[in-house]
Structures are given as structure tokens and as C-alpha cells.
């Protein structure tokens, strides 16, 4: 089957690595998320990663945890509202792919009250909202659920985006090749999301190995806080993901963070393309 997201990435890759900023849906409110996302796209972002807030985000550091808490405290917070937020971004900027970041339980059980096939219901809603891929940090590639997800998501043309880490074995990278689509989200350093002052030196060789084993573009995430760090992985990364930085700005400035978020986006884009 054609991998629409991968095609998009490979086509754009000619101009330099892609930039995919992350936003938690609903932080500080849903209207701001749409404005932030559109602002980022206009400042040069190539894709948007939209986080589904979760009560227990075990792969995230304190900044994104706090963002998820703020999002869930909104009076209009609901599962449906998250999909609506994605749809609004998609309708405003239809050419730019949006991918979801979600923990496993909302994806597999989020619609359990409304449907006998909650995974299908989730993917159908996501497809209607224009979502092109989903990253699920707590879904291991060798579990039956990953197979199930793959099977159903192909029908909706939504990519199953897997993560790799510094200690991912060659055997496992082969698993990712089988059922991975779109790109691989490479976790550059041990631990959870959050800004780090330095990236480990082995990142480059690791990312090369991941690309060779999986045959997919490789995006680097976890720990990016400055455009010059993006510059260091430019030669090996097909894309760079930045998340905590925006939510630190939102924590400080609320809806007024728009300008700072757009400036940072432009700076990262410049570092990657320049």
C-alpha cells in the first residue's frame, strides 16, 4: 500500500530536514492550539504533531505533563473536542500533515463506551479529522495490538509511527520495518521528553542505522531546545521534533505565546534549511 506520509516527507526532504513541532491539544485552550498550529505552519513547519492529553503520560517530562493537565482542566475538554481541534487545523491548512501523539489506552479504549470496535472508531474519527499518522509511545512493536493497529490503520491510510531509542536492538529495528509507516521517531537520549543542553554524540550513527534497517525517514526527538542542536543532526536527520520548548512558552505566556512560538519555529526551520 502507498505510504502517503512517507512520500510527502521524501519529497520535502530535498530542501533539507523537515521540522515537526509538537503541541498538546488544548493547552492553554483549544482555540489557541489552532492558532499556534497555523502560526507554526506559516512560519515554515512541515508537519504538526498534536498530543492527546492523557492522565498518566509516562514518556513525558514535567513540562508536557503540566501542559496535559492544563488542557484537561478546560471546561470544554472532551475526547471529541480533541478531534475537532485537529479537524480545525486541517481545514485551515490542508496541505500540512498532522500526526497524533497518544498513549495506548485512549487509542484502544477511548471509544469503548460508544463502540464495540473502539480502535476502528478512533481511527475513523482521526481520518475524518485529517490525521495522517499516530505515534503511540507505550505500544511495543512486537505485541498483538501493534498488528491489530497496523491492520486497521492501513484501511484508513493512517501511518503507524514507531519510536526507536539508543538501545533498540537490530532485531527490533526489523520489527519496526515490517509494520512501521511514515517515519521513525528516534528518541535521541535516554529518558523522557524535555529540553536538554547537549545531545549525546552517538546520535548520528544510531540514526543512520535506524534508517538503514527500517527503510523509513528518521526524525529526531526528545531534548531539542535550541536551533543550533538541530543544526548538529542536520546531516543525518530527515526531520526534527521539538515539543517541551513550546509548552514552556505557553506556561509563561498563555495564549500570548503565539509570537514566541512562531519565532522559535522560524529559527528551527532556518537552522535546518540554511
Amino acid at each position, binding site marked *: 500500500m502507498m505510504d502517503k506520509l512517507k512520500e510527502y516527507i521524501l519529497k520535502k526532504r530535498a530542501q533539507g530536514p523537515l521540522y515537526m513541532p509538537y503541541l498538546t491539544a488544548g493547552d492553554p485552550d483549544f482555540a489557541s492550539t489552532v492558532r499556534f498550529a497555523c502560526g507554526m505552519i506559516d512560519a515554515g513547519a512541515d508537519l504538526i504533531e498534536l498530543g492527546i492529553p*492523557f*492522565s*498518566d*503520560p*509516562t*514518556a513525558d*517530562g*514535567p513540562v508536557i*505533563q503540566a501542559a496535559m*493537565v492544563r488542557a*484537561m482542566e478546560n471546561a470544554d475538554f*472532551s*475526547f471529541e473536542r*480533541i478531534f475537532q481541534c485537529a479537524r480545525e487545523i486541517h481545514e485551515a491548512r490542508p496541505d500540512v500533515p498532522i500526526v497524533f501523539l497518544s498513549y*495506548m*489506552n*485512549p*487509542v*484502544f*479504549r*477511548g471509544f*469503548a*463506551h460508544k463502540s464495540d470496535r473502539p480502535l476502528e472508531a478512533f481511527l475513523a474519527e482521526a481520518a475524518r479529522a485529517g490525521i495522517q499518522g499516530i505515534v503511540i509511545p*507505550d505500544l*511495543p512493536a512486537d505485541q498483538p*495490538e501493534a498488528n491489530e493497529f497496523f491492520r486497521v490503520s492501513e484501511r484508513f491510510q493512517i501511518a503507524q509511527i514507531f519510536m526507536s*531509542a539508543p*538501545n*533498540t*536492538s537490530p532485531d*527490533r529495528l526489523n520489527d519496526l520495518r515490517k509494520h512501521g509507516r511514515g517515519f521513525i521517531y528516534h528518541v535521541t537520549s*535516554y*529518558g*523522557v521528553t524535555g529540553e536538554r543542553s547537549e545531545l549525546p554524540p552517538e546520535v548520528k550513527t544510531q540514526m543512520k542505522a535506524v534508517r538503514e534497517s527500517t527503510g523509513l525517514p528518521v526524525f529526531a526527538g526528545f531534548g531539542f531546545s535550541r536551533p543550533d542542536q538541530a543544526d548538529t543532526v542536520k546531516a543525518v536527520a530527515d526531520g526534527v521534533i521539538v515539543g517541551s520548548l513550546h509548552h514552556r512558552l505557553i506556561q509563561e505566556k498563555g495564549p500570548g505565546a503565539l509570537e514566541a512560538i512562531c519565532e522559535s519555529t522560524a529559527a528551527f526551520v532556518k537552522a535546518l534549511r540554511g
Partner: protein
Amino acid sequence: MPAILELEEVYFKVRSKKRFQKKWEQLQRDYIGRPSRLTYAARLSDEWGAQIYLKREDLNHTGAHKINNAIGQALLALEMGKERIIAETGAGQHGVATATAAAHFGLKCTVYMGSEDVRRQKLNCYRMKLLGAEVIPVTSGTSTLKDATNEAMRDWARNVRNTHYIIGSAIGPHPFPIIVADFQSVIGKESRKQMKKGPGLPHAVIACVGGGSNAIGIFHGFLKDDVDLYGVEAGGRSDDPGENSASITFGEVGYFHGTKSLFIQKEGGQIQGVHSVSAGLDYPGVGPEHAYLAKTGRVKYVRVRDDRALECFQEVSRLEGIIPALESAHALAFARELARDAGKKARILVNLSGRGDKDVAEAASILGME
């Protein structure tokens, strides 16, 4: 992932090795103080109307069943060459057990504990520090056991190269539920032998269930016998969402903390914050083996509310001279109920999973005894 694959490989390699078993048995005997005693509770039997037997896990070193697993997994950490162990803790018993194992083997130790639990389990917090462990209060989410588990998982992801995460309950990703059940099944093995040699096999076995480690430990001794098994969940203040932590009764199939099991959930797959007067039962899910045993019907799961557990906490202290942990008081409260209809000759075995010293201050404040 590689960390749990390594753990699986090492565990299944060493668990049948003579050298490992000998070391484990020697530690159980000389350090933990096993076998733990079986006590016939004469006055409770009189009062409640059946023959009540108590498996005395409260008499273990550090005062609860948690030490069985902590020492066992610390041995695995040594096998894997890890120099640091971490743990989550609710009531603090697993944290104390892990800090104890760390001190005994000369390992570095960090324990994550919800700030609400740090408040209600101060004594255990001091104990861990005295044992040389670093205690990190967790303020995210509901500031209880599930949040401490989140934080321990984050630490493990960061420090996976030199650190082993000793999960304290029969939860988490494979192979943790199996490892914990194996190390805790000594409770069931011993009590089966003790009952058989003494009064005869029990008619019913009762244990409290949070994540479910003490229950799975004692149940493993009796799964193949014609013995009724009861797991007692925390009924909390009421049946309303957020007011209890009875995850088998109110939970639904879900994915959390690396395992597929029953979890109390809200709309959209969010995990529900839960409540129990006892910090050790205050968890929104249950180990996958319990979910299975509930489905097959081999174990019946019931619930006991906060007030009845507190009543029993006092009654058992007064009648037997044993202060039970608030967790174990849930199991005892159900034993009292069961005894009423079981008849004078019925033998009921209760797993007294821990002692209640840690709960005295909190209970005194709730009961207005200060």
C-alpha cells in the same frame, strides 16, 4: 524494551539454577525470617463464629510480605550487574523493603512516593531515609501510587543502563507480574503446608487486593485445591467513580503501566483517580493474573469499605493483640462477614499481609483518637 527483555532472559535463566535458589532460600531463612508463622486466632474465632487462621506476613523482617519480592528482585539486579535499584511505593512497605534490600546488598536506592502517601505514611518515609535510600515525593496527578509508578518508570527510562526497577506489585509489563508472583508464592506454599500439617486445608482463603501481590502469593498455594479463594478490593467511601479502588468490580479492559488488564477509566480512555483509606490499595488497576482469575471465576472478588476496614483494624488489635495493616484489615473485615454464614467448623485462612504500625497515626487522626 531491551531492559525488560534482559530481565526476562536473566530471570528465566537463573530461577531454576541451584546456586540462585540456595542463595534465595538462605536469605528467606536468615534475613527475612521465613517461614512466617501460622496463628490460630482463638478470640476472633469465638467472636466471628468460624475457625480463623492468620498467615503472619506481618512477622517478616520489615513487617510485610513486600520483602519477599524486594530481596528476590535485588538478587536479580545483582545478576544483571546493576548498581542501583528504584521502586514506587504506596503504603511505604515496598519502599522500605527495597531500601532494606539495597542496604543489605550495598546498592544505591531511590524510592518514589506520592506526596499524599508521604503525608499519611510518615513513619515509613523516615525508615527509608534511615536505610540510606533517597525518597522522592511525587506531586503530579493524584499524588498516590499510580503517580509514583509513573515517576519510577520515567527514572528507569533515564537510567536503564545501571538501574533495575523493582516493581512492588503483580503489575507492569511482562515479566514483572510473573516474577512478583513467583517470589510471593512462598506465602501460599508455606501456608498450605502449615494448614495441612495442622488443622487441615482451609475452606476459604482471603487476601486483600490492590495491585495484588500478597493475594497472588497466597492463592498460588491453593489454586488446584477445592478451596474457595476471595480477593478483597478497597471499597473506599462509596461505589461512585473516584471514591474507591475496586478495579475488578468497576474496572474495564485497558492498557496501563505496560500491561493489559482491568483499570478504572473515564471517558476517552483516561485513567480515573481512585481512593482508599489504605495507601497500599489505592491503585486504579489490578495485576493481569487477577483479571484472569476473576474471568475464569476461580477467585471471587469482593469489596470492603473504608469504615469497615477501620473497624476491623481496631477489633483485631483488641481481640488478638495484633495490629494489622489497613490493607490486611480489608481482608479481615471480609473474613468476619464470611464467618457469620460459614459455620463454627469452617476454616478460614486470612493473609495478614503486613503489620499496622505504619497506619497508627493516620487511623488515630481519622478515628479522633489523637
